[in-house]
């Protein structure tokens, strides 16, 4: 009896010790962030994915500090949660949308979260704030606002525009005896004639990839479809397409297959962006599709050889085409009035013309507002960026790209089936059928 009692006591003591030692690793209740700090400031919870090596980490760090110096921001403090990479951010934000624990400022990491957040009813309707500040609303064109509108209400504040075009190596063009066009090759036939000339000179014409969503190949394919007449352009500007077996898409897939076989590097199949970019930096590839965020890399000696910046030229896609999509905007997840106001004040600050230009200067992000006065110092110090600002006005055809407009599972299918297409294991028509089947799964 006594021994039984002793055993129980011993067991309880062991349990107690375990619980206490584990509880010591826990968090006391008062550590949780509060609505306002001791000085009465409004505390905004923010999940920031612009951290670590992110291209906009320095810019957002600057933005938060500068906001606190403004009249609207002097009573605001930020409580940050850092989540490196947009993939990880999107995973977490989707969980927070469904649990209703959104941060006060919801950065938009793409991945179609605007509609998800709006339909959950957990983000603020920003329409009244746009209506009461006509000057702010005038900074955005209708397309950008419509892109962030769900059921007639604006939920996101777009902070930039995404554009992409072709970078080319002037030296390699010269070596192959090609006169680079001022704006773009007039047609894809001219483009491929130039590719053949480059090949004859022993130069690999284009950079392509297939892994990690196949970003570069996606840009070529979007351009091929988007410049294929009105039907192709309309298709490439359609959100969530489900029929990929159209004449334009199948033709584009056929051309992509040809490009993989004849005009790109051997490691493009299965390759991802970084090694392909290094081929371009090292002068091993003549043309590379991408956006203005790549410009700072050209002068980074860690990535590109010294003087590479001066060797790069810019042109639009054949037929004066350019990928241009409005970006999904940042949202407000706060529920209390003072926090909503403070969060909206931050989003207004983020989109002032001055900060749009600062973002352009520091990150290459294209201003969401049209016709901003770009300071002469910026165009002088960064002639390539100046050229981007100029050449985009010459685009006659604009279209979207798959990462902005397609269903996520279709983007994945695109990436996984590209090697099959490249090796000729499936025909372009079969490739498109697989994309169609994948997109249709979202309709079930």
């Amino acid at each position: 009896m006594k021994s039984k009692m002793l055993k129980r006591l011993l067991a309880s003591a062991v349990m107690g010790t375990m619980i206490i030692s584990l509880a010591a690793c826990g968090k006391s209740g008062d550590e949780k962030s509060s609505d306002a700090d001791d000085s009465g400031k409004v505390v905004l919870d923010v999940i920031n994915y612009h951290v670590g090596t992110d291209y906009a980490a320095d810019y957002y760090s600057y933005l938060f500090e500068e906001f606190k110096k403004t009249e609207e921001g002097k009573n605001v403090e930020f409580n940050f949660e850092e989540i490196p990479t947009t993939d990880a951010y999107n995973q977490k934000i989707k969980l927070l949308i469904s649990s209703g624990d959104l941060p006060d400022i919801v950065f938009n990491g793409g991945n179609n979260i605007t509609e998800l957040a709006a339909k959950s009813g957990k983000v603020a309707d920003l329409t009244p704030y746009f209506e009461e500040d006509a000057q702010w609303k005038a900074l955005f064109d209708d397309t950008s606002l419509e892109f962030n509108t769900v059921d007639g209400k604006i939920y996101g504040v777009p902070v930039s525009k995404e554009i992409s075009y072709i970078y080319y190596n002037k030296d390699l063009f010269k070596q192959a005896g090609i006169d680079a066009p001022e704006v773009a090759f007039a047609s894809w036939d001219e483009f491929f004639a130039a590719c053949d000339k480059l090949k004859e000179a022993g130069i690999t014409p284009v950079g392509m990839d297939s892994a990690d969503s196949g970003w570069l190949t996606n840009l070529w394919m979007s351009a091929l479809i988007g410049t294929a007449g009105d039907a192709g352009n309309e298709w490439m500007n359609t959100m969530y397409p489900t029929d990929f077996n159209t004449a334009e898409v199948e033709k584009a897939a056929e051309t992509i297959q040809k490009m993989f076989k004849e005009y790109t590097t051997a490691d493009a199949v299965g390759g991802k962006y970084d090694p392909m970019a290094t081929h371009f930096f090292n002068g091993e590839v003549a043309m590379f599709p991408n956006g203005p965020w790549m410009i700072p890399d050209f002068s980074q000696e860690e990535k590109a050889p010294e003087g590479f910046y001066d060797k790069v030229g810019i042109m639009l896609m054949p037929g004066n085409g350019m990928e241009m999509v409005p970006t999904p905007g940042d949202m407000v997840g706060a529920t209390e009035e003072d926090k909503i106001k403070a969060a909206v004040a931050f989003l207004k600050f983020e989109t002032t013309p001055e900060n749009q230009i600062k973002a352009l200067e520091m990150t290459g992000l294209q201003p969401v507002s049209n016709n901003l006065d770009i300071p002469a110092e910026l165009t002088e110090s960064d002639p390539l960026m100046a050229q981007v600002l100029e050449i985009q006005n010459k685009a006659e055809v604009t279209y979207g790209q798959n990462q902005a407009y397609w269903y996520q599972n279709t983007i994945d299918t695109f990436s996984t089936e590209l090697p099959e297409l490249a090796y000729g294991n499936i025909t372009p028509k079969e490739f498109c059928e697989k994309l169609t089947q994948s997109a249709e799964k979202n309709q079930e």
Partner: protein
Amino acid sequence: MKQTSGTVIFTSKVVKYIFMIFFVFIAVGPIVWAFISSFKTYAEINSSALSWPSSFNLENYKAAFKFAPIAKYFLNSVIIVGCSVLVTVALVAMCSYIISRFEFKCKTLIILLISASLMLPAQAISQPLFAIFQKLGIFDTKLGLIIVYSAMGIPMSFFVMTSYYKTISTALEESAYIDGATFLQTFIHIILPLAKPGLVTIALLQFINTWNEFYFALMLTSGDTARTVPIALNYYMGTFANNYSALFAAVVMTVLPTILVFIILQRQVMESLTAGAVKG
């Protein structure tokens, strides 16, 4: 005849060494490759995966500390993983012994419940866990992750240990009871020492699985208090802005403890893997 048998022995030795070198290469190759790459520049890494670095300096290691709070996350990993290994091993050592040795009501149900928990995908339980942890005040704490990791490790460890206990002869326990040992004494002094290789194996499996776990470390934390090494490694990856040089340096720094643990425990692991293999 003698010459032929000598040739056969020589050939079999050569084949044996080729196999051994091949497996050593597979095991050590990636670590050596990561170590060499940790001294290469971005351009060198992307130009050729197998080239030699132009110089051996510690710039990438400095950069690794600059971009991410790697030291803090490393310490968190050590505490969280260490505790979860201890909790898992302690619980599994006891419960799988009972299950493997005794017949009692609901035994099958308990085994079924533990088996069923193996089939739950992390994504399916993340939201309930998120809500429960917030209510209990253990969201963003080391305790929260220790509980989750221990719970996640129990099913697999349970089956490993249950099988292992079955290889230990019951005659040993019977002898102990005849000599007057109590149940607790028998378990602690007879069974546990014999089960050491099995326990080391589950400790090792638990260590490796939790050291690399990313999803819950992200979902159930919001700050530096409880985040672990896999999250820190994400700081070096970004859209169009990967810093592979710093990433390799960070990987080398964070993978070393795993290797050290394996070196320390490898004798027991080998014993565990081969235990029973020679029994007739």
